[in-house]
């Protein structure tokens, strides 16, 4: 049982290590690329309260 847990932890650590290395490599290639167009959510219009 402990062996299985250790294998699961080791496997997860290895997966995340490889993913972070690949992410770094991808960033090197994407340096010159323009970021994708993004439109933030417009602020809510304040309701005018009649006094």
């Amino acid at each position, binding site marked *: 049982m402990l062996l299985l847990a250790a294998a699961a932890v080791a*496997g997860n650590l*290895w997966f995340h290590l*490889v993913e972070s290395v690949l992410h770094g490599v991808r960033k090197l290639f994407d340096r010159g690329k323009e970021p994708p*167009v*993004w439109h*933030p*959510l*417009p602020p809510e219009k304040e309701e005018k309260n009649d006094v």
Partner: protein
Amino acid sequence: MGFFSKLFKGPEIDMAKSDANAKKMRALFNQVVEDGDRYQLIFGYTEDVSRFNYGFVHGSKTKIGNLIVGWNEADETIVAVPTVPDLSGCGDPTYYRRSQILKAYRNKYPTDAFVIYPDKKGYIAINAYDWLEDESLYVYVSQDKELAAFTDFFLHRFATK
């Protein structure tokens, strides 16, 4: 008895949160689509499945993409706007006009998705449910009526086969 019936009832939808998100979806959609109010909206998502093999660790990864999907029955047009689960912003819209697409159909297996081929080069598969609870992956919105309306439009007006 009351305790157990509540236990087995399942999760209850927070309608206030759902309505707030529906308003945000409308605000985002109208910001990027001309005459946005002419379109009805639902929340949909895409699933990109890829395989990986890192030596002794291998498997598959699923990347979820969130979409605000608008449709106009008169124009037979579907518009997909990429977004994120918290609806903090969106990308540019993509228009799918029935007169210009290659084909469109509803897939049943392996996933229940609305598939559109704009041309031979690629396709988009839009998944949609009446409500999804996981806010880290999907927009929290209740949409059973809207989904039924979209399904009816897609199957009877938009699908090419």
